[in-house]
Structures are given as C-alpha cells and as structure tokens.
C-alpha cells in the first residue's frame, strides 16, 4: 500500500489521529522551548553540521583510527558489508558463547537488518528492553517512531497486551502500574542474559570509545550484567574527537524530547575485567549513499526523531504509513536510497514545508533532498503511466490552478460542469473542498482593458 492509502486509513480514527498529532506536537513544542533557552543553539547546529561534513569527507581514515584505538582497548571489531553479514557475525558471537537468549536495547540499525527474526529463526530468544520496544515486540509490530516506538498505541492497547503477556490486572491502564510490571519482567531477563546487544549513538575516532544514550538505563542494565556486549554501529556514527561529544550531547536530547540530556550517557572504552565488547561496523548501503552527492548529507543523521515530531504529515499519518524502517522525513530520504521502487511514494509524502530542515540538529537539508529524490524517481520510472510519478504529474492538472496557459477553456468548463461532477469522487480536489468561483475575466483581460 502506498503512503496516501495508509495515511487515509490512519485518519479514519479521527480521535486517535488527533491525539497522535497533538502528542507529537507537544514534544516538538518542548523542543522549541528548550532550544530557545540556549543562546548558541543555531551555532551548535552549524558546528554539528560542520563536524559531520568533516567526518563524511574523511570517513575511511576515521574508521581506521577508530578501529585501531578500539582494538588497543581490547574491543573486538567486525566489519559487515550488508545486513546478512551483520546478522551472521552477531549469530556467530552468540554461538561461540552458547547463548540462547539475549537482551537488546534500542537500535534502529538492528531493525534495519531485521536481526530479531533472523536470531529467532536460529533459536535465540530476543528480548527488546526499551519499554516501548518491548510493547511493540509483544504485539509483533515494528517501532512506529525511532525515539518513541509505541507512540501509535493507547494505554488501553498496552494494558490488554500486558494482561495477556505479563498477567497484569485486566483493565488496569495506569502507566505507572504497567511500567512497573514491565520492570519486574525485564529485571529477570537482564539477570539471565549472557549477551547484551546495543546500538551506538556516537563512536569516537580519537579514543576508540562509543557512547550510548538512554533514559531508562536499559542498555546499561543489559551490558553490565552480561558477559558479552555486542554494539551494532553504522559506519556513519563516527565523530572525530571526544570534545565533539559536547556539541552532540547538547543537541541530541533537546532535539529528541525537549530534555537537556538523556539520564544515562554511557561511554564504553574497554571491557570490564573478564568481559568482552564487540563492535560490528555496518555498511549496508551507506557507502553508496555517501557516493550520491545530493543525498550524502542524510548520513549526518543522529536519529533524534525531531523531524518526525515536527512533520505535519507524520503527525497525522503515523509511522507505519511510510512502510520503511526509519519513517518520517529522514526516512523518506534514506529509504529511496535503499530501494527506490519500493519507497517511491515517500518523497511525495510531503508538502516541502521545510520544517524538518529547520529542526534538524545537524542541519540536513531534508526537504531539499525530498525534492531531489522526486527528480530521480521520475527519471527512473520513465513514462510508465501506472507509476506514482505519472499519477502525480497527472495530479498537477487536477489541481485547478496548474493547467497552464489554456486556462480559459478550463474556466469555461468549470462553469458548465454540473456540481455532481465537480464534487464527485472523480474530482479529488472537489471531494472535500469547494472550487474557487470563476471570475468574469482573467487578469490579462482586465489589464488589456485598463492599462495598455
């Protein structure tokens, strides 16, 4: 199903979609407020963008430096060219440690690699430990937002699934009660897991350390109790210097949820005595994206989710309407790079309002890249009349203003057409909107009479 179809489905439950819009708007509003409490906010965004520019133009040397430093700190480094290799590496580490159950904290990268189903097929129980992720895992759903994975659910939904899976009281929808039930359930999983998997927010080339940020503390609960920590990291997560963290940690949580910092910001540099740390460095299309001059800036993304919270489309259509691992504006510029055909409707799921670009803490020109993807998609699809771009091109002529110069004929038609046609389903514009009244004369005609 394309984005428009899924979006209109989401809008059918108007109370829920209104709640979704208002809740995410509230998060965006908190971000706006806190960002304005930092006088140097715009300068920080510029610095973050410049640091990432530097990274993207020296990525190979930073990766080599990162590897060297990490190895010197007794960290094992693995390289994976694609999702399949990534998953095999993770599995082989688990097999070496005879591990049949793991705990995992939030990692969009492992979603991208579809690691959970792969491990489950190979007999490994995977427990997502971020509360939101555990909820969607119980429901067999992917996250609908990269920072707020269960934002599409109401507490009633969560109460029902917890009653089924965790035997909580039927009908008890109190968030504190439900959260504490999850705490007890997950505490047992943390204590029992030999291997813990996390994502990575930042990898520091200078020191070989990597940083993981959470509010729940679930990443740390997992890794400090396990014998082995596997950190799955996209190659673009590198930053050059430790002090660059000062810039990024000031921006990340403020952009994501409007809080000054996440409550836990863990810097892993070497394993504790008797334990192991593995880092899997993943390409999976990133080097290809780096080679696309117009789109490489998308690799600056620090996964804060601010573009989702601000996007008037995302807020009203939900994460699933995008049908891609990373939804929202940033997803709409990353996903076409992975599979242009599958994701061809996403760059059109935007009014190009530009709000995403203005909230982005690393100044990715998201809406301009959406525009550029549109140009690519129409080239790729040629003149196939069924293609989305052709529908959109045809759509131009369905919008009353855009029928170019032969408008007089069109104006005539508007007058003659019976209301039933103008306002039927055939005319998409007129379905829920009146058409403008047709004036007696065009401006051109007026000008000829009055000014020349």
């Amino acid at each position: 199903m394309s984005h428009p179809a899924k979006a209109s489905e989401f809008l059918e439950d108007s109370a829920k979609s209104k709640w979704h819009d208002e809740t995410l708007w509230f998060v965006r509003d908190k971000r706006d407020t806190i960002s304005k409490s930092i006088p140097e906010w715009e300068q920080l965004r510029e610095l973050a963008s410049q640091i990432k520019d530097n990274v993207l133009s020296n990525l190979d040397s930073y990766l080599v430096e990162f590897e060297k430093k990490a190895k010197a700190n007794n960290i094992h480094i693995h390289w994976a060219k694609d999702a399949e290799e990534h998953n095999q590496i993770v599995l082989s580490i688990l097999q070496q440690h005879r591990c049949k159950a793991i705990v995992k904290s939030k990692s969009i990268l492992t979603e991208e690699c579809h690691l959970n189903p792969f491990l489950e097929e190979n007999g490994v129980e995977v427990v997502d430990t971020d509360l939101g992720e555990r909820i969607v895992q119980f429901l067999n759903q992917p996250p609908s937002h990269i920072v707020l994975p269960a934002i599409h659910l109401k507490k009633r939904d969560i109460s029902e699934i917890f009653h089924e899976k965790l035997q909580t009281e039927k009908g008890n929808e109190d968030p504190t009660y439900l959260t504490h039930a999850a705490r007890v359930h997950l505490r047992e999983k943390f204590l029992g897991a030999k291997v813990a998997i996390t994502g990575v927010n930042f990898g520091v080339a200078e020191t070989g350390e990597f940083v993981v940020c959470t509010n729940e503390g679930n990443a740390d609960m997992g890794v400090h109790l396990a014998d082995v920590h596997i950190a799955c990291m996209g190659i673009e997560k590198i930053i050059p210097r430790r002090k660059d963290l000062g810039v990024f940690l000031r921006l990340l949580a403020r952009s994501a949820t409007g809080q000054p910092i996440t409550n836990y910001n863990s810097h892993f540099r070497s394993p504790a005595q008797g334990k192991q740390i593995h880092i899997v460095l993943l390409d999976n299309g990133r080097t290809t994206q780096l080679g696309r001059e117009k789109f490489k800036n998308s690799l600056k993304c620090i996964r804060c989710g601010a573009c989702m919270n601000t996007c008037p489309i995302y807020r009203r259509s939900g994460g699933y309407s995008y049908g891609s691992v990373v939804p929202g504006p940033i997803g709409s510029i990353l996903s076409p790079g992975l599979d242009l055909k599958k994701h061809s409707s996403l760059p059109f799921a935007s009014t190009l309002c530009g709000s995403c670009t203005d909230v982005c803490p690393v100044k990715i020109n998201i809406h301009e890249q959406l525009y550029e993807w549109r140009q690519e998609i129409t080239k790729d699809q040629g003149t196939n009349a069924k293609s989305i771009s052709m529908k959109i091109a045809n759509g131009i002529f369905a919008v009353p203003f855009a029928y170019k110069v032969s408008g007089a004929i069109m104006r005539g038609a508007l007058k003659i057409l019976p209301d039933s046609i103008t306002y039927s389903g055939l005319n998409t514009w007129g379905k829920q909107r009146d058409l403008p009244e047709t004036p007696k004369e065009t401006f051109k005609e007026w000008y000829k009479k009055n000014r020349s």
Partner: protein
Amino acid sequence: MSSRDSILAKIKAIPTEKKPLPEIPDFELNINLKEAFIQSIKGNKGEVIDQAQLNEFLEINRFTKIIDLSKSFQDLGTLDLPQDAHDLADVEVAIIKGQFGVAENGAIWLTDENMGLRALPFITEHLVIVLDEKSLVDNMHAAYYKIGNQPSGFGLFLAGPSKTADIEQSLVIGAHGAKSLQVVLTNL
C-alpha cells in the same frame, strides 16, 4: 577482499572535497552554577539534598542493604561490594562519589573508579551521589575539557533516575534502573 577492505576501498573511491574540522568555542555561561545545577537535577526528576536529609532518608526507610563507596562521611554501608554484579540485584541504596557536575543539564560524571561495578548505579533501587559543589562546571564543553584524555574503561554522564514515557507519553520514574536519584552537594 575482506568486507573491511572493500568498505574502506569504496569510501576511498568517492571523490570528496575535504572539509575542515571546526574548533568548538567554550560558550561560557554567566550563571550561578549551584542554582542552575539544582534546577537541572530537579528537571530530570532527581533531588538535591544535604547530609542530614540523607541520614533521614536512610533511617525513615529502614534500608538494610546499602553499599557506600563514597568515602565521604562515616561509612553508611551495610554491604560490601560483591565480586559478581548479579549479586547486586537486591541492593536498596548505593552511595557513590561523583567527579563533577554540569550545571546546564545536571549530568554527573562517573567512571569505573567511582562505581566499583559498572552495574551498580543502574541496578540499585535508589542512587545517592555525593558531589563537591566546587566541582561544578557550566556546560558540556567545559565538561569534556575537564575530562580531557582521562583513560577510563567506562565513563558515564548520569543526570537523573531511570525514567520512561513510552506509555502515552506519561512520565514514569523507575523503568529499569534506580527509582530515585539524590545528589548530596557538599562544600568541604
């Protein structure tokens, strides 16, 4: 070719214009560090208390499983640090020393030497951090300047108790880790 070499080769083959790495200004803040820090901790749902309040907290709740690594007051601990982190599972209170605090966001820097076992500040039911008021810095730039090249296997900016808002954005404290954070600001 290994995946490592092919990834690196692929990157090398992309023609790029080298972009310089910017210097980072210190963005000094003219604020009262202590007041700002206390506000930040409150905002993160922690509390700033004094030593008397700490004693009161321990007494009222009649905690019996306390680990005190802070070496700041008389030893308030009832338990020694175990060998295995799993044995921390029912610790009620951990008292540790923080290295310094950051006024703009309430983050407190901790490393292996403060935590004993890395799991401690997470797994304990309640966390108490003892922090010298004079250690406060204004923002994260000053914080990383202070950390410099400090070589610790594990470093942590901890800014509050474990929290989540994953159920309808309702804030709940005590998701997995500590259900409370209390910071004892000292001026010794």
